[in-house]
């Protein structure tokens, strides 16, 4: 990833992060505000419900009290106390309830048996335990109805004034849809009452607005929890999968005097407004983030012109330097840190070029010195005998002819030998300088190895050197010059033989290693120091007393001309191992 891309990404992420943080904070804040409003609204509705509940309780108790004091009931009580037939009053509850606007009404004899029931006329004669609450404040009561359902009502019980034995009135009003209908419920809020709490959940037990009843089935878990634990339960209920159709629902259990839960008041506030505001904030955040990204792109372009472009030029120039172009320079366009960096880069490349020049000069001088030293050393040896021989011949001129002839013959022989020696030395130098270009053909590297092993086998035996070979069975086809490779391998074997004057083991192997033919020549001689390993292939470097230092240089030159590679390593148990890797045919670079 380029610096420009990184800067673009960083700027975009920064902008998006900031926008996301602001959006999230706003959204959370909005949610908290709406939750607070929901709570206030719920508390307000619950408070209002409580007030209406108390008012209705008071009205119910008052209606029952007035009825208990009425002349009609006092006459009925008098009639019954004088042996009157209670059957005559089977349906008297209906007109009385209409007169006192009660929805539930029962006249109950002193023994608790019902004389007349408005809500379930057929229950006459059955017991009504609610008379135990006669004279007490109004109470919640679940009333069973003939159709098998139950209703919740606010009831009050009272004995008819002056009745002896007492005749009781148990009257009540429904706590259902009618009761809720009078509530000023804000838009988006539902107020429901769940009745008949004893059985399993049934959405038909809800009373309230039609809108609320349509969603009643979704409040099952909430109502069940409120019924089971008797405490207020708050939860968010999703009517559909869409967030805006979620409701913040509070279920408040309504309890009888005994503490039993008789009904559950459900206040549900729509979260549509909150979700819409949150969505609005999110849309704004997305818009700002989009604009931020565009801004980041433009800003990065501008910054690139100011910052990243010089850095990119520096990076490109550094790459060119690495590729060997030491003359690369960058333009200095500013006076800031980037300009200083460019200036330093130019100084650095300039100094590197100068140092390289000096190094080349130094190496060239060193090479010449080494060559001179080597030449001096090589030529010095034959010159000394020549000088001595010439001096002998000069001194022999004074000797008798016979002796002179002997000395002369001996001296000329010596001169010829030393001159031949000089020619050999000069020839080697000449060979190194005139190493021929390899004439490559497809050949099997194993054959070159076998040829060398076969050639030097007898000589190895004479020097008590044991030969070990490891040549793979599969062909190692390479593109090579067999003569030059033979010469190189011969050099390595001869070096090995020189390294083991007291005998040892020579191991020659030829194997396939990935896409190369790997030939190794290992001896068990005195081995090499790390410094020797490093300099061994340098021309004119030798570890031998009478070596020219050109053998391994020639080997390296041959292997390099075959696109191969030669390395040397010291073996742990002593000795050295030369490893040649030559590309197999078809894989070698052209």
């Amino acid at each position, binding site marked *: 990833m380029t610096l420009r891309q990184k800067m673009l990404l960083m700027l975009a992420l920064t902008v998006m992060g900031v926008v996301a943080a602001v959006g999230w904070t706003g959204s959370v804040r909005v949610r908290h505000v709406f939750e607070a409003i929901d709570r206030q609204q719920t508390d307000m509705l619950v408070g209002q419900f409580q007030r209406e509940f108390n008012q209705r309780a008071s009205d119910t108790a008052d209606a029952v009290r007035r009825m208990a004091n009425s002349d009609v009931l006092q006459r009925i009580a008098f009639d019954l106390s004088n042996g009157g037939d209670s059957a005559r009053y089977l349906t008297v509850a209906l007109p009385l309830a209409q007169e006192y606007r009660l929805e539930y009404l029962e006249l109950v004899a002193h023994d608790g048996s019902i004389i007349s029931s408005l809500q379930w006329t057929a229950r006459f004669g059955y017991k009504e335990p609610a008379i135990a609450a006669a004279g007490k404040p109004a109470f919640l009561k679940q009333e069973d109805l*003939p159709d098998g359902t139950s209703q919740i009502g606010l009831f009050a019980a009272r004995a008819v004034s002056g009745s002896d034995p007492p005749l009781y009135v148990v009257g009540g009003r429904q706590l259902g849809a009618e009761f809720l209908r009078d509530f000023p419920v804000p838009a988006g809020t539902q107020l429901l009452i769940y009745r008949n709490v004893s059985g399993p959940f049934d959405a038909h037990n809800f009373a309230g607005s039609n809108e609320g009843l349509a969603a009643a089935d979704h409040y099952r878990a909430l109502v069940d929890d409120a019924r089971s634990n008797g405490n207020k339960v708050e939860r968010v209920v999703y009517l559909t999968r869409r967030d805006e159709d979620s409701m913040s629902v509070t279920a408040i259990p309504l309890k009888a005097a005994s503490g039993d839960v008789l009904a559950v008041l459900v206040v549900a506030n729509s979260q549509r407004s909150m979700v819409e505001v949150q969505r609005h904030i999110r849309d704004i955040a997305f818009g700002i983030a989009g604009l931020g990204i565009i801004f980041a792109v433009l800003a990065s372009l501008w910054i690139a012109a100011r910052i990243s472009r010089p850095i990119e030029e520096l990076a490109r120039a550094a790459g060119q330097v690495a590729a060997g172009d030491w003359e690369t320079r960058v333009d200095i366009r500013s006076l800031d840190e980037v300009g200083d960096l460019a200036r330093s880069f130019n100084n650095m490349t300039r100094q590197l070029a100068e140092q390289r020049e000096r190094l080349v000069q130094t190496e060239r001088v060193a090479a010449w010195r080494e060559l001179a030293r080597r030449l001096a050393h090589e030529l010095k040896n034959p010159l000394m005998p020549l000088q001595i021989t010439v001096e002998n011949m000069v001194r022999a001129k004074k000797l008798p002819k016979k002796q002179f002839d002997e000395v002369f013959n001996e001296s000329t022989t010596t001169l010829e030998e030393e001159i031949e020696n000089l020619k050999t030395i000069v020839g080697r130098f000449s060979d190194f300088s005139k190493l021929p270009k390899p004439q490559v053909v497809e050949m099997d590297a194993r054959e070159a190895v076998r040829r060398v092993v076969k050639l030097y086998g007898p000589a190895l035996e004479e020097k008590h050197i044991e030969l070990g070979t490891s040549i793979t069975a599969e062909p190692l086809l390479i593109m090579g010059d067999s003569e030059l490779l033979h010469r190189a391998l011969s050099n390595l074997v001869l070096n090995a033989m020189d390294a083991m004057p007291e005998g040892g083991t020579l191991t020659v192997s030829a194997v396939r290693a990935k896409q190369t033919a790997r030939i190794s020549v290992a001896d068990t001689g005195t081995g090499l120091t790390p410094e020797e390993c490093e300099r061994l292939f340098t021309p004119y470097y030798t570890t031998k007393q009478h070596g020219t230092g050109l053998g391994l240089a020639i080997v390296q030159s041959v292997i390099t001309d075959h696109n191969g590679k030669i390395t040397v390593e010291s073996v742990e148990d002593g000795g050295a191992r030369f490893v040649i890797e030559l590309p197999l045919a078809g894989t070698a670079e052209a």
Partner: protein
Amino acid sequence: MFRRSAISAQWAWLPLLCLTLPAVARTRPHYGGTLRIETQGDPWQMPDGTARRLVLDTLTTVSDAGGAQPALAIRWESQSAAHRWEFWIRPGVYFQDGEALTSDTVAAALTNVCARPVAGMGACPWKTVRGVGPSVVFVSEAPEPDLPELLAQTEFAIARQDSTGAMIGTGPFRVTGFANGALTLTANDDCWSGRPFADAVELRTRRTVRDQWLDLSVGKTDIVEVPPELLRQAQQQHLNVLASRPVDLLALTMEPSGWFASREMRQAAALAVDRTALYNVIFQKQGEVTASLLPQALGGYSFLFSTERDLDRARALRGGATTSALTLGLDTSAADMSATGQLAAERLALNLHEAGFNVQVAALGSHAKAELLLRRVHFEASSPQAALDEMLARFGQNSSVSGTDAASLWQEERGVLNTETVVPLLWLSRAWAVGERVRDLRLSPDGAPLLAGASVEVR
């Protein structure tokens, strides 16, 4: 002295005689006027059938003392051990359109009746009916010793339809109009049984009892119905009430299938029923608590069937099994069954609930699939054997009564009731409140007002 006194005494009661004469004149029936009657039920269908009774006649009628008496048939004779009956048609009887009544028209009318079975009525007791000369011959597969009495039932009234499709008969009134919910029937001057006293009858149907009573109180009608549960109230209000003998049986029937396939379950349900509460409270001590298909006065053995509630035994018979929701339906063919019947059904459901049955009362008119049905069955027969026959037919029992003595009837009835598919609860009377204008109104043995014999006091 004694003679003067006697003469004085004779003259003394002359003013009294003068005072009495208008009273005597008032009690004598007068022709003319319109009788106004209001009912809840269908005027052409039983058990109400007020118009049907006025327009049509039956071959026989039942007397107050029991037994059949001649009507459109002047005599009858059974043959082949009551397998064949021959009824001689009264000569000189004409339909209201002037067509003479013949044995063929009678046979055709009776065949029509059997071709259109009426709800609550059993199958026709004969196999074939045909006119043979002046007589009509009935042939049945089983002996039908009560056929003369059965033919007195209003279902078997002789009717034909005129060219407009209107029903016409040979009765004392004929239909002359229908306006504003009131059916107008005019006196048939040529009726074989004599012209009725009233010139016309205005029959207003499908009126609630409350409206009927209101109309009676303001003089808008002359005759209204009094349901049993309001009979005491009517008496307390000093209405002129005519009540029949028990003619309606309130009974609970159980479908012997499903949960009630077991007789023990049916018996448990029967034992759970509290008849006393129905009698004392819902029907305001009117009628007769019963466990029999015949009233005590008619059968004489009703007391042998126990009416006691035995809740413990009911629970024991039901066992611990949990019942699925059972439905108790209400037979609303009796028009005045709606409110009181619903209340009685709810009470029975409570009774059954105490015994462990989960029973819900079905909405009115939706008893098609009810396991239990509360029915109010009307009967017209006046002899025990015919009455039992009629009741068995109305409850869909296939058996027919063979014996005539009380012991045989009891055995017969016990056999039926032991199946526990019918649980008789209460015998109820029919009653009517009559306005001050009406004179000489009597009720038929089955509780219907005999309007042809009543007259209207025209002031």
